[in-house]
């Protein structure tokens, strides 16, 4: 039962049955934006013409602002930080795109290293089953095939779903995924034709999505060679350091830690932060190792295409979702940047 088939007419049953064991999330329209949110009904989901969520879904496991610790001013444990993480709710997310699932896998490598594990990320991540939807019509801003991926990439997903028109074809990829599929009464064995149709869709999407740039020279050049390229002045010239790219990006993960006080005590929170800001690196002495936008813009691209691959087994720190391409107010296009880096 690697593959199972769900008639779209039975989506309501699917959501209902799944909802008995966990919270079900899916893409939902909110004004002009699409985001992942809890759904109680199949019709809550904005699957018609669905491309991808406006913001990346990283916020599900890594909220823009998250309480980490708390403390009280009075009592036996006055001024002692306490860890009060709640047990995360079990979730299944329907409709995650393969690029975003791959970004989760990259963040798994970031939020855990040889010494430390960030439990705030993993507790939520481990409690979630990802039911991804292969991309049949990639957007003009997408470029997953240029960053070692493709529109039906399975890495990072628990279940890959193919939209066959009348049916969805479910391919269970992990234990979590198999359990989810097995728990739904309206799943049916697919026909050979169903599986064949899935293969055709997958092939078609890959063919449409041609490779737009290479990364071979970026890999071969040394850190300092890339760092000292002339291209950075021109690339950074239009940048406003607005940080939009960092906030929408599924792999950007930098955060700030701050204490917030209340009458009785306070909390230690973490907030998304961006390497585009001046405050990010400035020392208490006033010295700033990245004083202008040139250094900051360079950092963002070097991090994704050189530093992360060097430290994480060649994995590129960009999944080609194209959100930053679509949303950058001055039209900086990461594809053009990498072409220059790779020249």
């Amino acid at each position: 039962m690697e593959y199972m088939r769900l008639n779209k007419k039975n989506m309501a049953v699917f959501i209902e049955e799944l909802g008995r064991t966990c919270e079900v999330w899916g893409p939902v329209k909110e004004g002009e934006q699409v985001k992942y949110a809890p759904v109680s009904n199949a019709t809550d989901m904005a699957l018609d013409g669905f491309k991808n969520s406006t913001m990346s879904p990283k916020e599900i496991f890594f909220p823009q602002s998250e309480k980490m610790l708390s403390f009280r001013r009075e009592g036996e444990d006055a001024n002692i930080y306490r860890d009060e993480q709640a047990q995360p709710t079990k979730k299944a997310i329907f409709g995650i795109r393969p690029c975003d699932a791959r970004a989760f896998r990259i963040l798994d490598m970031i939020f855990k290293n040889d010494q430390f594990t960030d439990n705030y990320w993993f507790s939520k991540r481990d409690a979630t089953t990802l039911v991804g939807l292969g991309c049949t019509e990639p957007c003009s801003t997408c470029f997953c095939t240029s960053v070692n991926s493709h529109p039906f990439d399975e890495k990072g997903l628990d279940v890959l779903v193919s939209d066959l028109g009348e049916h969805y074809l479910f391919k269970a990829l992990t234990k979590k995924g198999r359990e989810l599929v097995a728990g739904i009464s309206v799943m049916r064995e697919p026909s050979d034709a169903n599986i064949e149709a899935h293969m055709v869709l997958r092939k078609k999407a890959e063919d449409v999505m041609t490779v737009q740039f290479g990364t071979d020279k970026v890999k071969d050049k040394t850190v300092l060679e890339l760092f000292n390229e002339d291209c950075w002045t021109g690339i950074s010239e239009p940048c406003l350091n607005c940080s939009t790219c960092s906030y929408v990006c599924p792999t950007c993960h930098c955060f700030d830690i701050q204490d917030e006080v209340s009458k009785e005590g306070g909390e230690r929170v973490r907030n998304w932060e961006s390497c585009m800001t001046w405050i990010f690196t400035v020392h208490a002495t006033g010295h700033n190792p990245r004083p202008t936008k040139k250094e900051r813009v360079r950092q963002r691209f070097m991090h994704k295409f050189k530093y992360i691959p060097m430290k994480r087994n060649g994995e590129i720190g960009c999944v080609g979702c194209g959100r930053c391409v679509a949303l950058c107010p001055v039209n900086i296009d990461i594809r053009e940047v990498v072409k220059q880096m790779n020249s």
Partner: protein
Amino acid sequence: MKNPYLPYPVRIEKTVIETEDRNIKSFKLVFLNDDDCKTFDYTPGQFAQLSVTGKGEIPIGIASSPTEGDHLLFTVNKMGVVTTALHNLIEGSIMGVRGPLGNSYPFDKMKGKDVTIIGGGYAFTTLRATIVYMLDKKNRADFGKITLIYGARTPGMLLYKDTLAEWSKRDDINYNVTVDRDAPGWTGRVGFVPAVTEQVAPSSKNAIAVICGPPVMIKYTLPVMIKLGFTPEQTITSLENRMKCGIGICGRCNVGPEYVCKDGPVFSMAQLKEMPQEY
């Protein structure tokens, strides 16, 4: 699972104002829980994140050596929000410590070699720890000749005056403490660290040098070291960059592919030559 962001509670047992400008203060801390104390297994060169509730967290080098017992020593220069809040805490206050963090000085490479320690200003903290560690009865035989060159603007700006006085009486450390210019009552060396280094001229044969201090001191001392024959591999320093998590996750402190908080803060000059100068 252990939460690497959760500080251990500690009590400030003692504070000492170190310098005549009253801007640098040392904090002797004791753990509230024995288990935390046992878990906090550190080596000189490492740092910790110090927490003041409601103010935040800052990375500070560990100035004590594990050979000195269960307490921890930190020496803090008053700069901004958190360092000022820390200076305002009185003895007996409860605060937080998270660590130990970062790599350490390369004691495995220093063993069997002469070690020259060159320091200036308040960056002397982890160098103090290193010297105390090497001079400890159990460790002294592991190292060859130990040379100290430490400079401050004035005698009143030198840290750890009691400890310095003890070292100056020992015959197993070549002790060179200097101040920038003559001062009433000062009988020691006078001159900047680079010039004193040239006079002391520690041998580079089978030796390691550790240099920490203000950027200008390092800038003018490095050429002297090269003249003395120290290779980039033999010359070690410790970097400071703005930090948050201290555990290689938040993305704040990188210099090229290396996180200062986790892959550093200690690097050799040979490593730094391959890295962008973003520190």
